[in-house]
C-alpha cells in the first residue's frame, strides 16, 4: 500500500510502485483530466504538479509520488478559476483541447515563478508542451492575460 496525497485528498494505493502516476491518477483514482500523450515525457499532455513542479506523470513512478503533494488539473483551483483557466476560457485557447490540461498546469508553474512573464519566459517554460492544433499564439496571449488577472487578484496562484 502506498499513501498518495492528490488534490489535498489522501488515497491508499495498492499497485506496483513502478506504475506510472498517470495510470494511478486516471485508472485507479479516476481523475481523467490528465491526458496520456506520448508516454515518454516528450509532449507534456500528462503534466501534474508534484510538490509544485510540472512533472510528467507518464514517466513518474508511483513510488516517487508517495507521501508527496500531487495536484492535477482537477485540483488546480476550487472552481476552475485559476487565472490561467479563466484566461484560457476568455481567449478560447483550445481547439481539440487534448493537450490543454498539461498546458495549463505548466502555465501555472510559470505564473507562480514569473508573475510577469515575457514572451521569452513563455517560450522557455512552455517548450515541453506540444499542441498538434498549433494553438501556441493563443496560449501565449492567454498567459499574458492570466498574468494580468493574477495581478488584479493580488498575486495568488
Amino acid at each position, binding site marked *: 500500500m502506498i499513501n498518495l496525497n492528490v488534490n489535498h485528498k489522501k488515497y491508499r494505493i495498492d499497485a506496483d510502485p513502478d506504475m506510472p502516476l498517470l495510470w494511478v491518477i486516471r485508472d485507479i483514482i479516476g481523475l481523467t483530466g490528465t491526458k496520456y500523450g506520448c508516454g515518454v*515525457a516528450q509532449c507534456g499532455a500528462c*503534466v501534474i504538479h508534484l510538490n509544485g*513542479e510540472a512533472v510528467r506523470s507518464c514517466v513518474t513512478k508511483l513510488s516517487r509520488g508517495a507521501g508527496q503533494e500531487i495536484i492535477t488539473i482537477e485540483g488546480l483551483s476550487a472552481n476552475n478559476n485559476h487565472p490561467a483557466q479563466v484566461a484560457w476560457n476568455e481567449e478560447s485557447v483550445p481547439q481539440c483541447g487534448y493537450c490543454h490540461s498539461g498546458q495549463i*498546469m505548466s502555465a501555472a508553474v510559470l505564473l507562480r515563478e514569473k508573475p510577469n512573464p515575457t514572451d521569452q519566459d513563455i517560450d522557455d517554460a512552455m517548450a*515541453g508542451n506540444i499542441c498538434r492544433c498549433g494553438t501556441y499564439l493563443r496560449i501565449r496571449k492567454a498567459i499574458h492575460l492570466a498574468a494580468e488577472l493574477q495581478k488584479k487578484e493580488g498575486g495568488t496562484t
Partner: protein
Amino acid sequence: MNNLVKPWQRFMPSRTVLIMGLLLYFVGLMAFAMNHKTELKKELPPHVVIRKDSVASVKAFTAVYKVLMSPRCMNCHPQGDIPLQGDDSHLHTMFPKRGLEGKGVLAMKCANCHQPTNTPGLNTPPGNPNWHLPPADMKMVFQGKTPRQLAKQLVDPQLNGHKDMQKLVEHADDGLVKAGWNPGEGRSLPPMSHAEFKKAWITWLSTGAYAPKQ
C-alpha cells in the same frame, strides 16, 4: 559477623581473572578500531601522490579526453545553455535551459522528466537523482575544447567547480559521472569502461596533470 560472606563477595572474580578480562576487552577494542580504520580507508580514494612524468601524463589524458568528449559526458557540458542529446549530440529537443543552478527553469526543470532512475524503454529519458548541468556561474564547457584547453580547464579551480587535486580524484566516482556508464536503452557507452577511465584519470592527475601541446 566477620565470617559472614555477602552474596556479591562470593561471586567476585579473582584479581587475575579481572585483569585477564580487562586485557581481552582492550585487545578486542583495538582489533575493532583497526578493522574499522581499514574499512574507512577502503572507502576513501587513494591520497594523490604526485610523481611528475609529462609523457605518461599526456598519454593518460588522451584516454581521458576521449571519454569526456563522448556524448555521455559532453552532452551535459555544452557550449550554450541548452543541453545536448543523443549519440550525435544534437540540441536537446524542447530546448530546456540551464537555469542558474543548472537544474532547468520554470516548468522545464530537469527532474520534471528525468527521474531518479532510467525510464524503461528505448531512448526514454535517462535518470539520476542528481540530474543537472553545471551551474550558470561555472559552466565547465567540454564541447568544442581542444585537449589542451580542456586539460587546463580541468585543473583550474576557478574553472572546475573549485576542485583541488583530491576532489578531482574523487570526482571520478561521482554518481552523475558514473551514470554515463548506465545511459539507458538506445545510447552508446563511453569508449572505455569506468575502471579504465578512472585509472587514466588518476594517472593523468598523479603524473602532474600535464596538458597536451594542442
